[in-house]
Structure formats: C-alpha cells, structure tokens
C-alpha cells in the first residue's frame, strides 16, 4: 500500500477536523477523497504529507512516516490554496522546484519544457507568474506536482479555478497518470470529476469517512429500482417496504403512458392509501423502490407476481455519485 492510515485524528482546539480515519490506497489507484467544504479533506492530505501533525493515530506513506525526505522525492503535491512567487517566470519556478527535488540540470532542462507543454503553458514559459490567471497558476502548480515523475501525487482541488476545457485537460491528465501506474490521491468536491476519474472513493463528512469503496460498490449499496406494473393494490405496494423505501409513484390511465403525460403523483406509500385516485386493476403504476442491493430483485419479482401484479419493468437504476453524495449528506445529518 502506498498510503495507509490507522485511526488518524486531528483536532484544532475543540474542533475535530479529522476523526478515526482508517484507509489504504494501493499502487496505481486513483483515489477520490470527496466531501463538502470543511469536511477535513485538506487536513487529511496535510497529515499524509507531514505538513500537519496528527493529534492521534498513525499514517504511513510509501511505508515511511509522512514528510520523510527519503520518500518525498517520489511524491508530488498540488496544494489547494497557494500563491506561487509572482516574481518568478514559470520556467524559473519549475527550475527552483526541480533543484529542491535534487534533479540534475540536464533532467530539469528536458522535463520543464515538456511539462509546460503538457499543461498548455509552453508559450508562457517566460512570463512572470504574477501575470498568470488563476487557471494558469493552477496549471503551473500541476506541472510542479509532476516535475519529479512521482509515484504518488496528491492533487488538492486540482480543477479549482479552471474553465471547462481546463477541467477536461486535468481529467485527461489523471487518466494518463493512471495509465502510467502513478497513484493519485484526488481531493475534490467536484462530484463529476471524481466519478469519471477515480477507481475508489471515500466520502468524508465532518472529519469522518462515511462511505468508502469503488464507485460500483458505493452505488450498489443503495440501489434504486424502477417498477412498472399493473394490478397493484395499495396493500401490495405497501408490502414492498419490507425490502426498502418506496419512493415516488405515479399512475397513468394508459398502461404504457409515460411519466410526463398527466400522471397523478404521490410521494409515499401512505399517500397511495390516502389518494383520491383509486388504483384500478388496469392502471399501470410506476414507482421507485430503494433497496440495499440487487440481490433482492428476484424476491420482489416473485412477491409482485404472486400478489397478482403484472410486472412490465423491474429495472435497477444506477444512481449517480451525486445522488449518493447528496443522500449520504442528508442521511448523516
């Protein structure tokens, strides 16, 4: 494992920034650390890099203690908030950091133009950083993080300040890093960015990891199933609650009528009971059911059919990371 933490905790006075953080990140993984602002993401990265000392617990980076110079030559880091020296040109800035990495002059001369080209700043290599926009500064920061050809890169909000094109380029860059076997620890609150780039994700809230796993694992933990069936009685619908939470339902005059065609919609199974619209035997009801996992689908199909329903659709819907994230944020209060 390139990153391992065990019950890592950081408090600032009475404020708990990170609590009981236990995770591991393997070689070549793109690991997303996802959470709202103030969730403790940056503090976690800082502890992993030795910038902040943990209050309790332990962290290991490349099997060394965080910040150990013996391994920091293999680690790249793009901080979330930084202000690089305005008086340096991009090329000089990278040269300074190349020297700090201990890179020989020949290697710096070869790598710096290549990296500036890669982040789209080749034509601004001799411009002072003080003349750079925030997005350009972010790009040169990325180049700095990759200067040492690292085995492990920490990117803290790498697309912050970038336009859509820049975000796309960062995503491509992360894909390239993954292809090259580089491990990426990506801190972000951009859900779409994490969704398309990360192999595994941890969702963190108020300093605690509340979900961790691959995207498939996380989204499978709560599966939304779309059911379209006729012959559903309110009692039969209510009985679905034993597998999960019944969500919105709608009833249509025509059994194949789509949702937008003037359906009557109720929010819960209770409202099914109380609705003024009686469910007729021919009515096609469309409803959603949130279940723990897809394994229960055959049981639900049996239940509905044996209850007299004619099932047209029983389809698990893959929920997006955004849906999951919002749900987790609401669930945990």
């Amino acid at each position, binding site marked *: 494992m390139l990153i391992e933490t065990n019950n890592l905790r950081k408090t600032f006075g009475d404020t708990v920034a990170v609590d009981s953080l236990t995770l591991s990140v393997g070689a070549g993984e793109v690991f997303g650390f996802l959470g709202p602002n103030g969730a403790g993401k940056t503090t976690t990265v*800082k502890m992993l890099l030795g*910038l902040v000392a943990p209050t309790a617990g332990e962290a290991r980076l490349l099997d060394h203690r965080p910040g150990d110079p013996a*391994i920091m030559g293999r680690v790249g880091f793009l901080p979330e908030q*930084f*202000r*690089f020296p305005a008086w340096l040109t991009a090329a000089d800035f990278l040269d*300074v*950091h190349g020297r*700090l990495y201990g890179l020989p002059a020949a290697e710096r001369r070869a790598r710096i133009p290549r990296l500036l080209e890669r982040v789209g700043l080749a034509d601004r290599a001799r411009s002072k950083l003080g003349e750079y926009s925030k997005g350009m500064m972010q790009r040169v*920061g990325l180049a700095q993080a990759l200067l040492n050809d690292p085995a492990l890169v920490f990117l803290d909000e790498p697309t912050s300040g970038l336009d859509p094109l820049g975000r796309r380029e960062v995503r491509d860059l992360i894909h390239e890093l993954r292809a090259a076997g580089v491990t990426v620890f990506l801190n972000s609150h951009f859900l779409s960015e994490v969704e398309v780039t990360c192999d595994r994700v941890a969702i963190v809230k108020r300093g605690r990891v509340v979900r961790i796993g691959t995207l498939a694992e996380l989204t499978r933990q709560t599966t939304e199933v779309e059911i379209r069936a006729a012959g559903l009685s309110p009692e039969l619908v209510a009985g679905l609650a034993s597998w999960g939470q019944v969500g919105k339902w709608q009833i249509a005059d025509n059994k194949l009528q789509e949702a937008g065609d003037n359906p009557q919609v109720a929010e819960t199974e209770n409202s099914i009971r109380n609705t003024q619209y009686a469910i007729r035997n021919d009515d096609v009801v469309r409803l959603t059911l949130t279940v723990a996992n897809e394994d229960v689908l055959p049981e639900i199909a049996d239940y509905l059919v044996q209850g007299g329903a004619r099932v047209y659709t029983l389809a698990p819907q893959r929920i997006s990371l955004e849906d999951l994230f919002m749900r987790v944020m609401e669930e945990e209060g």
Partner: protein
Amino acid sequence: MSVLEIARLTFLEARMRKMLWAILLLGAAFLILYAIGFHLIYADIRERMPGGVARLLEPTNFFVMAGLYAINFLVVMLAVLTSVDTIAGEIASGTIQTIVTKPLRRWQVVVGKWLGLALMLSVFTVVMCAALLLIVKLDAGYMPNNPVAAIGLIVLEGLVVLTLSILGGTRLSTLTNGVVVFMLYGLAFIAGWIEQIGSVLRSDAAVNVGIVVSLIMPSEAMWKRAAYLMQPPFLRELGFSATPFGAASAPSEAMVVYAVLYTVIALAVAVRWFGRRDL
C-alpha cells in the same frame, strides 16, 4: 545541499524582486552623499578650528561615528525588512507547503533562509562600513581604532536582529513579527541610552537596567561596544563620548559572546518551532 539551495532561492528572490538593486543603488547614494557632506564639513572645520584643538577633539571621529551609526541603523532596518515576511509570509500564502514537501528537512528551510539573508546582510554591512572608512581615509587620512572588530560587531548586531525576526516568523504573522522585533530594538535602544547616561552619572542602577535589557535584546550593546572600540580613549576621559554616536561605557566581551550564543540559540529555537508547527 538543500540548505544552499534554499539560501540560493532566498538570494534569487532578493534579486528578482529588485530588492538587491534597491539596496545597492541606495547604498551607493548614501555613500556618495556622505562623501560630499564629509568633504565639505571637514574642509570647513579645518579652516575654522585651530590645528591643535582639531587634533585633540578629533571631529573626524565624530563624523565617522555618525556615518557608521547611520549604517548600523540601516543594517537593523534591512535585517527586519528582508526577513520579517520570509517565513511568516510563505506560511500565510501557502508557498511553504510546496517547499517543505520536497525531499528536505524543515530545519534546512530555516537555516537556508537564514544563511541567504545573513550573507547578503553581512556583505552589505562590510561593504558599506569599509567604503565609509575608505572615504574618510582618502579625504582626511583618518582611520578610527579597531575598525575590523567594530565592523564585525555591527555585522553581529544585524545577525541578532535578523535571527530574532526569523524566529518570530515561525510563530507570528508578518505584521506582528515586525512590530515585535522593532519594539524590542526600540527597548534595547533606549536601554542603551539609560546605560550610557547611568555610566556618566555613576548610577549603577541605571547601568544595570541597560544590561538587563541588553540580555533580552543584545543588538544595541553591539553598537555601543563597536563605538567604544573606535573612539580615541581621551574622548572618554574628557567626558565627550556619551554622544548619540559614541559610548561612555563598553559592554564587555562577555556580552559579545552572549550575543553570539543568543543568535545561535534563537536560530535553534526557530528551527524547532518551525519543525513542530502545522503548516
């Protein structure tokens, strides 16, 4: 190696931010102004003052001391202004995060920055003092006593202030750090006066106040000793040495040793504080 890289970066920053050029140009302007002023005043004094009196009172020494005192003051200002933001500012801006996550140790960052600034400050001090003494030597043929030791003490005073400023930067914000160091310098300055006047008036209590404050901030004591070493002994005997630029009593050699130790310990504490703080 990393220490030298950080020192080089500190020097590069001074050069790229045009600070180095400003210091060189304004330092040159200072010396030119001093040379013109000294030449005019010295010529006037030679005309007006009888030769015997002039030799006795050595007005040249007064002007040398005045010039060196101004340089001494500039050195203190530069020591604070060049260093007050070097660590505190980089912590505040987040710049330091990309530096200390490189394969180096935190102590190397502190010592490297100190080394870069200390070298620049020391070179500035030596060049300015030597140039001023040369101006006087060429114009009036005068060289005060113990010039090398005196310049060394002025360099040490700059290093004391510089190190204290770097120490403060590891804990305080830029502004607070600047205020603290300047205030400490002010305390040492006024305590130096209390000590000098106490010495003339034979007041042990006043002298002790000065010594105690010098232990807290031994900067001004270095100037006082430098001034004492450069003055002709008979000026002290005549009671003409307690001028703004002179010294009626000299801080002892032990105080010099103390200032060196003070600098080393302050740097060690800076290393320790910076090494342990969250960034």
